[in-house]
C-alpha cells in the first residue's frame, strides 16, 4: 500500500507525515509522530480515550483516517498545557483526584476543554451527556464531573 504525504497543523505546529491510506489518525499520532497522549481503548469509537480536536471539534481519532487530515488543524492533549503551566482542567483533575489509572484522562481532558469552550457554565447533567462517550472504569465519574465544575468556575473567574 503506497504511503501518502499529508500536511497538517498539530497543536499549532505545521506537521508533515507519511501514512498508509487506511491508517487511522490515532495510529499516525502515536506510531509516526510520537504523540502517545491519545490512547487506544477500543479502536471503534466507543471509549473516547483517543479524543482529539479536528478543526476545533472533538472527535475519536480512531475513527478518522490520517489522510483525511490534509490541511486540517489537530489538537491533542500534548498541546493543552502552556509550556510548564498546566491548563486549569489538568491541574484541577490532579488536585481533585479525578483519575486513578489515567488511561481515559487525556481523552476526558480534551473533551471537557471542548465542552467549556462551547458552554462555560454547564450543569452536571450537561457534563455527563457531553462526556458519555468517554469511558472510565476507575473513578465512577463523580470526581470527574466535580473536577470539570471546579475548573469551569475557575476559568469563568479568570
Amino acid at each position, binding site marked *: 500500500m503506497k504511503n501518502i504525504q499529508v500536511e497538517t497543523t498539530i497543536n499549532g505546529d505545521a506537521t508533515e507525515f507519511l501514512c498508509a491510506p487506511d491508517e487511522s489518525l490515532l495510529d499516525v499520532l502515536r506510531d509516526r509522530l510520537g504523540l502517545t497522549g491519545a490512547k487506544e481503548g477500543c479502536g471503534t469509537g466507543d471509549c473516547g480515550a483517543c479524543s482529539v480536536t479536528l478543526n476545533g471539534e472533538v472527535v475519536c481519532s480512531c*475513527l478518522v483516517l490520517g489522510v483525511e487530515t490534509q490541511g486540517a488543524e489537530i489538537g491533542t492533549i500534548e498541546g493543552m498545557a502552556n509550556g510548564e503551566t498546566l491548563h486549569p482542567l489538568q491541574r484541577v483533575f490532579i488536585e481533585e483526584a479525578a483519575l486513578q489509572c489515567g488511561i481515559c484522562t487525556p481523552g476526558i481532558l480534551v473533551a471537557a476543554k471542548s465542552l467549556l469552550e462551547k458552554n462555560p457554565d454547564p450543569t452536571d447533567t450537561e457534563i455527563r451527556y457531553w462526556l*458519555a462517550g468517554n469511558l472510565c472504569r476507575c473513578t465512577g465519574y463523580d470526581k470527574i464531573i466535580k473536577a470539570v465544575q471546579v475548573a469551569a468556575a475557575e476559568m469563568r473567574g479568570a
Partner: protein
Amino acid sequence: MKYVKPDSFDAAAQLLRDEQGIARILSGGTDVLVMLKAEMVEPDLMVDLKHLPGMQDIVAENGGFRIGAAVPTARMGEHAALVAMWPGVVEGAELIGSTQVQNRATMAGNLCTGSPAADSVPAMVTAGAVARLHGPDGVRDVPVGDIPTGPGKNILAKGEFITSIYLPARPERAGDAYLRFIPRTEMDIAVSSAAVSLVLDDAGVVTDANVAIGAVAPTVRLVADAGAAIIGSKLDDDAVAKMVAAVEAACSPINDKRGTIAFRTTTAGVLAKRAAHIAYIRAGGQS
C-alpha cells in the same frame, strides 16, 4: 486500498462506477472505519466526498432546509432555525453515538448504512424528507423512506451516493418528535423507536399526521393507519388508542437479547403515543 478525493460529483460517480473491487464512500466514517477495523470489509477504493460543494452546508431552500450529506449531526443541533422547524429530526440525529461521534456522523450515512434501528431515519420519514442522489446517470431525488430496503441494504445503484437531504417547509402550527427506548440513558442502539410529525389548525385539531417506527421491522416503517387515526382529533384518548393499535399492528420485530417481539411491539406503541403528545405541544397545541 486507494484513497481518493475527487474534484467533482461526476468524477466521484465515474470512479465508483468503474471500480472493479470493493468501494466505500467516506463521509463521517463512523460506520465504515469501524468495519475496516473489524475487517468486516476491506475496500479497494475509499472515496472521500466531504470537501465537495454543499456537502458541509445547511442551506435554506423554498422554506425548508437542504442539509449536505457530510454535515455532522452536531452541526444540525447548533443550527437554531433548523432546530425550530424540525426539532424531532434534529433530536433523532443527535441521539446517534457520543459527542465525538456526533461531530463526524451524518444523517446520510445513517440512512445508507440501512440499520432498522437508525435513530435519524424515522423522523426524516415523518418529515417527508427527500434525499438527492448523484450517480453516473445523473441526479435524482428519492424519498428518504424508499432508500433502505433491509438491514444493511439500500436502493443506491453502483456509483450512486447521497449529496444532500431536503427537509420541506412547515406550516405555522406544526411539530415533530422522536423517542427511542434503550436500557440506559445514552450511547446505545434503539430497541424500538417512534417519530411523529403533525400539523394543527387554529383550534388545535390535527389536520395532517405522519407516524413512523424504528427497530421493529427490517426497515423503518411509515404507518399510514397510525397517522390517519389522529387526523381530525385533538389527541383525545380514543384517537390515540387507535393510533397505538395501528402502530402495534405494523410491528414485525425480531426476538433477540435486546428485546422480545412483545416488548418491542408494546414499547413502539408507547413511544408513538408519547412522541405524538410532544409533537402536539411543539405545534402549539394545548394538552
